[in-house]
């Protein structure tokens, strides 16, 4: 489980008239990635590898 960080900054109020189905609106997509190699070391890498090898999601892995 990764730690939760608290940021002392406020979120904006919802603009008047904002509406969406189930209050969620898709707008865009992730624009770019680079293929890189993670170094296979450290305890959290082992968790990463286990998730990938056993095709588990983060929450399945937490259990």
């Amino acid at each position, binding site marked *: 489980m*990764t*730690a*939760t*960080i*608290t*940021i*002392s*900054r*406020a*979120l*904006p*109020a*919802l*603009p008047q008239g*904002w509406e*969406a189905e*189930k*209050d*969620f*609106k*898709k*707008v*865009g*997509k*992730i*624009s*770019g*990635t*680079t*293929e*890189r*190699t*993670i*170094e*296979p*070391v*450290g*305890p*959290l*890498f*082992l968790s*990463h*590898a*286990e*998730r*990938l*090898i056993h095709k588990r*999601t*983060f929450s399945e892995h937490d259990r």
Partner: protein
Amino acid sequence: MSAGKTGLKAEDRKAIGITLGNSNSSIAYLKEDNVEVIANEDGDRQIPTVLSYVDGDEYYGQQAKAFLVRQPKQTVAYFRDFLGKEFKDIDPTHNHASVHPEDANGAVSFTLKEKAEEDAAPSTLSVSEITSRYLRRLVTAASDYRGEKVTSAVITVPTNFSEKQKSALVEAAAAADLEVLQMISEPVSAILAYNAKPEVANVDKIVVVADLGGTRSDVAVVAQRGGLYTILATEHDYEFAGYALDKVLIDHFAKEFIKKHSIDPREDARSLAKLKLEAEQTKKALSLGNNASFSIESLAQGIDFQSTINRLRYETVGRTVLGGFTRLVESVIKKAGLDPLDVDEVILSGGTSHTPRIAHNLRAIFPESTSILAPSTSANAINPSELAVRGAALQASLIEGREAEEIEQATHPAVTTVPHLTNAIGVVSLGTDGEEIFTPIIAPETSVPARRTVRFDAPQQGGDVLIKIAEGNTHIKVIKPEPKVKSTNATVEDAKDSDDDSEDEDSEEEEEEKREKVWKVGSTLAEAAVRGTKSGAKVEVTIIIGADLSVKVECREVGGKGGVRGTI
């Protein structure tokens, strides 16, 4: 990549971490949750990577290094980089004062007399054989120290060690009855050593590791994201390294000797070997104190030599070499497409990193927020000579209980080579003046899949809140100062100051321009509403990026029910 073919059961392993350098090697293991760097029978934790045969006996480490003066033709040094290479591809620069490498049927080899007998035939030993014998000595020292037979190791290697070199190392180890559990890269091993405390292991940061050794310097820029490490750029340099600093002192004292005696001690091989050993001692002493002595009995033609040098003088004569390390670090940051302002931490690793001037020079090119982890710049620094081996020991303890196939599967490219985000993903929040500010939640260069959770304040009065998920990136803002109006009635003191010290004035001018990293909001990915938050509430936002680059967003009021979810 891992060997594990020894038929050893995971539970029967006794594993250690090993660094095998061209100059020095180290061994370490995890003892009751603490890394213990092992001192060999000579009491050394930095064990010279030297093997020597004198009168039929084999010597290694410090004892073998001492034989470079009297028995150079029986002493093999600086061989690690030759492993797995063809003769035509090696650089024998550092082997002039010990057994020269030669080409024996394509294998890099060394010829010396192993046996004591006058008429014994010389042996030609391949670099693999030499490595194997040397590793055997390290493993024996570790086994003796632990009181149980060491079977396995995690060994650190440079980031530019080829697959061929790695297989050669595994084979050399196997011949020494040592199972290589894994080979891990030297810079990341140094980071592991610093991250041994679990609370620091999980902070996202950009780390520069400058591994400054004896014959080479290797610098890497590493993105640490959620406890995963990705190398963004590396640079390898064979000009700026410890030997070049030794040479500065050799030349300095040789000149002094010439002035007095009109003899150049560098022209005689034995005198030069003595100069080299003493220069290294003096150099090390100058890392600790402001003055160091330099004294050699019978340096040349039976004449003793004795002198001293202070740190300032050393830094003056060594200025060009010392400056080279800074430029090397600058160049690799540039190669990674980053700015010194992007660097959170600089880890100085390797023996040469003890040099105060190198750390101070680096301090000057980074903002104050960057920690420079070296003995002379940080009270929390770990001995740079032990960093890589500490990381190797931690990794060894982490995986020693795992089956070889399991390790192999985890280190497979299908698991390690994955997309990394180009831009940050974050949330648009409000600054103190109500302006929109991008707050990154997932940093650029984070590998996918990834998950992060962040909490924000809801608007003070509560109510409905907008969560705008967007991409973002940084740019460097250069703030030009207001043109200074030279006060006409400058005080006498001011005038005196600037007269006195023109250098001071220069640096003042440089400081006038301020550079700052600022986040820029990019394209929006999604919007969500969290309705009816209480006054003073906090809102928690979780972003999960899938391996397929899907973005799952979960937002909720902390302590509240329900919340909003959506997937892009």
